[in-house]
Structures are given as structure tokens and as C-alpha cells.
């Protein structure tokens, strides 16, 4: 349970809110590179942390993220002409560059310098790992580019997708921290999904439905270990890292690519669920990429031409009661992404946490909320840089491994939890 004030504090991320200020300390994924594929391509509307913006790639390939609305009389620059190093409003021809600077006001003589006095708010964009990232905070405090492993390996080793999720970011992210739901909600998928099946570890997941959990603070967030019994006096450990504020890693299976998520607020009632898949030491195979594009694993099938999931609330998520009854899927919804999203959206736009009844195994979620609240307060009161901004905090890896029962996972898995260039993941 959370008090209403705390729930409001954690779920509101618009300009000027404490959590909004916290999010504005980090680089956040904002678009896939494929959305701005080439110079002078169509501009794309972006809404992030409750701010309406427009992104474009100019003639020289430079990226810009600026206020969506023309400074003259306010129409959306989505209608703009992206040409000759700027975005030109089609109404009266005012033109803006990637920094939001107005560079042309056709009705005024160029010599008057009028255009120089007009500037739209803008944020920097960088491109890394097939993802375009923005930083919306104090320019003086702009951190170095993100170094999460999924965006640092060569492009042929990584694949990212995003899907619209129509609920607050926190209830979406909490699903990524809560390892205890996997044995139920996703149990039908372990042996069927091409991106999960065949791993030796799967049998422990399905064989021991009562995992035991350990939650430990890490420098950037949390490590959540789930332990199941295995043969020969061993435990099968699955370790989920969370890096503040909204990065989660799913423990791997066999040699399948590693996957996980970023949960980025669009506004307080919507978020982008980003899903990545990468392999630390090899290129993704054609069949793996085909499966990802086809919505397998943590990815989803889309309504064509959009990033809206094909199974969504307008079609009751394609609920299949026969599959539910037969145990083919546990909830009747296909695909793990929508199994999670369907339930999280049904909580309502912002989950009412005053009514929840948590149990001991929810401690990962309790601790994550506590760390977010603590970091947002420290930032507001003392200007303390929050955990996860330091790129060293980002170099963590999810792991799945067998350890002797008397070995502590913090020691036994120490190396496994560090992202090291050229070193294969630890996975069974």
C-alpha cells in the first residue's frame, strides 16, 4: 500500500514535478532510429514527460527535438516542410533549425534580425544502438551518453522495439521488477516462444513454483534474485537488475539474446514500453531478428504502420478463453508483452495503490518505490545527483546461473552481473 500523496508523487512526471525533475536527470529513449531514417525525412511528433515536441533530422543529418508548435501563431510543426537545414511552418513560412532557433521570418527583412529573437525550446538528441535518446534537464548537468550494454554493442548484435502502453509508467515498470509473476502469467510461453525455448534453465522455472527472493541494493538501483531448487545441492538463480529510474533486465535463457525494457512516461496516463534484445558477443541471427520483428519474445505485433500493439484494449486484447481454459496461455492473452500490458492497463490510467495488499514477495517493488521517492526528495532538497546517472551504474547484466547452495549470489554471480565487452553472458 502507498498513501495517496506518495502515489501522486511517484506517478506524476510533468514539468516541475519532483519525479519529473528526477527523470530529467537522465538520457531517455525517445525514438527508434528507423523513425527518422534519413536527412529531410518527415518530422515525428514526440510526447515525453508531458511535453509536446517535434523531432526531425535535417539536411545535414543533425537531429533536433523542439517545441511542437510554431512560435508565430501556434500550429503544429508536424505539418512542416523539412528542407535546407530546418523545419519550415507551412502557414507563413517561418523556419526553425534543430536547436529551435528561428532562422527565417519571410515577412520581415533578413537584415532586421527579427528571426534571431525567436527561439523554440529544444532538447539535445543523440543516436546510440539504434535508439535516439534525449536529455531534458539542466544543460550544465548533462551526463555522458548512456552506456547500457544493449546500446553499446555493434548494431548487428542488438534490436529494439517500442509499444504504446496506455497507463502510467510506474505500474508498467513494476511488472519488470516483480519476478514473482513469471511462473504464473507467462508460464505458457517458456517452452513455446522461439526466443525462450530450449534453455536448460526452463525446467527449474517450471519445476519449482515457489521461488525464494532476495533483494539487494546496487549502486544504480536494485538486484532482485529469485532462487529455485536444482539438483546436486545447487540453486538455480535468476537475477533481475533495475537501474533507476526505469531500466529493467530480464534474466536470460540459454544462449538466447538478453532482453529487457525501458519504461518512459509519455504523460501521466501513457508510457512507451521499450523492449531490447541483444547478444554481448555475436550477431543476432536472421531467424532471431525475424522472430523479434514478428512480435515474439518481449516484442509485440503492431497495428500496421504504428507502434500500437495489434492486441490492445480496443479489441479486448484478442482474449482467447479457449486457450486460457486449455492452459495454452495462463491469462488467455497471447505474447508476454501483452500479457503484462493488458493487466497493467486494466488497473486504470493510474493504479490506485491505496487499495493494494502487498505481501513479503513484493519487496522488490516496495524497495524500488522507496528508492525513487528517496532519490527524488534528495534531488529536490539537496540537488543530489540520483543513482543511475553515472554510466558505471548502467554496466550491469542480467544473469541466470546454478550456484552451490552455500554460495551467496552476490559473490557467486559477481562477474556475471557486470557487462564486460567481448564476454559472453552467464546463462543456463
Amino acid at each position, binding site marked *: 500500500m502507498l498513501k495517496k500523496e506518495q502515489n501522486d508523487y511517484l506517478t506524476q512526471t510533468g514539468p516541475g514535478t519532483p519525479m519529473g525533475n528526477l527523470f530529467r536527470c537522465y538520457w531517455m529513449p525517445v525514438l527508434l532510429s528507423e523513425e527518422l531514417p534519413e536527412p529531410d525525412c518527415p518530422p515525428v511528433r514526440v510526447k515525453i514527460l508531458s511535453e509536446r515536441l517535434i523531432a526531425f533530422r535535417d539536411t545535414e543529418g543533425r537531429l533536433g527535438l523542439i517545441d511542437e508548435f510554431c512560435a508565430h501563431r501556434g500550429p503544429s510543426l508536424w505539418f512542416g516542410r523539412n528542407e535546407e537545414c530546418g523545419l519550415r511552418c507551412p502557414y507563413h513560412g517561418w523556419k526553425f533549425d534543430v536547436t529551435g532557433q528561428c532562422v527565417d521570418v519571410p515577412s520581415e527583412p533578413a537584415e532586421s534580425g527579427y528571426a534571431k529573437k525567436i527561439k523554440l525550446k529544444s532538447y539535445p538528441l543523440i543516436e546510440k544502438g539504434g535508439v535516439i535518446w534525449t536529455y531534458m534537464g539542466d544543460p550544465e548537468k548533462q551526463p555522458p551518453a548512456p552506456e547500457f550494454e544493449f546500446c553499446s554493442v555493434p548494431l548487428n548484435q542488438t534490436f529494439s522495439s517500442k509499444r504504446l502502453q496506455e497507463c502510467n509508467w510506474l505500474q508498467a515498470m513494476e511488472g519488470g521488477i516483480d519476478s514473482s509473476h513469471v511462473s504464473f502469467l507467462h508460464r505458457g510461453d517458456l517452452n513455446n516462444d522461439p526466443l525462450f525455448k530450449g534453455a536448460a534453465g526452463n525446467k527449474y522455472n517450471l519445476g519449482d513454483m515457489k521461488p525464494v527472493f532476495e533483494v539487494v541494493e546496487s549502486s544504480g538501483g536494485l538486484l532482485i534474485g529469485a532462487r529455485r531448487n536444482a539438483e546436486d545441492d545447487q540453486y538455480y538463480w535468476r537475477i533481475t537488475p533495475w537501474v533507476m529510474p526505469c531500466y529493467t533486465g530480464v534474466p536470460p535463457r540459454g544462449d538466447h539474446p538478453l532482453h529487457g525494457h525501458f519504461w518512459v512516461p509519455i504523460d501521466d496516463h501513457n508510457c512507451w514500453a521499450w523492449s531490447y534484445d541483444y547478444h554481448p558477443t555475436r550477431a543476432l541471427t536472421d531467424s532471431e531478428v525475424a522472430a523479434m520483428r514478428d512480435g515474439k519474445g518481449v516484442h509485440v505485433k503492431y497495428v500496421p504502420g504504428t507502434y500500437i500493439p495489434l492486441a490492445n484494449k*480496443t479489441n479486448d486484447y484478442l482474449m482467447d478463453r479457449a486457450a486460457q481454459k486449455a492452459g495454452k496461455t495462463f491469462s488467455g492473452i497471447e505474447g508476454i508483452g501483452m500479457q503484462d500490458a493488458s493487466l497493467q492497463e486494466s488497473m486504470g490510467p493510474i493504479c490506485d495503490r491505496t487499495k493494494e495488499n502487498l505481501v513479503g514477495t513484493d*519487496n522488490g517493488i*516496495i524497495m524500488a518505490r522507496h528508492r525513487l521517492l528517496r532519490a527524488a526528495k534528495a534531488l529536490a532538497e539537496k540537488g543530489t545527483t540520483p543513482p543511475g546517472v553515472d554510466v558505471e551504474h548502467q554496466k550491469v547484466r542480467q544473469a541466470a546461473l546454478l550456484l552451490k547452495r552455500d554460495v551467496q549470489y552476490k559473490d557467486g554471480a559477481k562477474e556475471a552481473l557486470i557487462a564486460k565487452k567481448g564476454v559472453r553472458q552467464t546463462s543456463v
Partner: protein
Amino acid sequence: MLSESERMASAHELTFRIKDPNSKPRSIAVIALDKASAAIVDQISHEQWRGAHFFTSLSFSTDKQPAEGQSQAMQAWLNDLAGRALNLVAEVEKSDFVVVITAAGEDARAVSVIADACAMFHKSLLGLVIPQDDTSDKDIDISLGHLRPHSRMLVVAHGIDYIEVMLTALRA
């Protein structure tokens, strides 16, 4: 036409949610396993709690040894802040779940007796390890080693504010 899921997920529909409570108050036994954590438990107990019962130590009756195959739990007493000694088994039976707290590196082996009592009534045991100012990784390992065989959930939490947050989240 809107699908049912779409209509029902709206903010407007939130206003029609049932307002009645969906749970009854719960009782949680919070037990310190060592002197350092006893001081922490003492401090937390001064907050307002509905269903949390705080115990600062565990002791054993010395008049008779447990019978062959019988757990020491039968002879164990929990000492509360008012100076009373209450029967461990009876307290565990009354509780919905049990939280044990140890300061990192301290001797927390008494947990096995509490775990026996929990097992008798199928209650979950949740273990909290609190690092102290001079705690090393080794100390945390010692505590985890003591608690791990007995806990459904183990948490290493810096600062006593986390215990309060956790008990509040659990509606203690």
C-alpha cells in the same frame, strides 16, 4: 463502438470502483534477532502501527530440554518492549506473517527456531538484514547465510526508514 476493455480502462470509470475496504487488518510479528536490531525495533515501535507487534529478543526456558525430535520453538519466549515474555509459538500462530531483523554480521542463528514455529502454522518468514556503519560485504554474507535457509523473502536494506516503509506497505 468502444470495446468493453477500452471503456472500462478510462479515468471516468475509476470513479465507480468499490470503495469498501478489500482486506481486514493484519497482524505482523516483528522480531529482532540481536542487540543492534533490538535498538532499531525499539525505535520503530514508537510509530503508530495497527497490527505490528514488536519483540526485541528471544529466550528459552531452561527448566527442561526439548524432547527427541521436538523443536526448541516449544520452549522459546519472545520478549516485548513492555518487558513481557510471550510464548513464541502462540505469537506466531496469531500472526499473519513474521518479519525477522538482524544487523549485518551479528549472530542471527536464532532464526531457525522462529522458522520452526512458522513452519508449524505455514506462515511466511521475511528476513531483513540491516547494514551498520562499519558493515563489510562479509558481514552481509554472514547474515544472509543465517537467514537464507529459512526466509521466503530476504532484503538487505540500508537505513531503518526502509523497515518503516515496508511495514506501512504491508499495512502493519
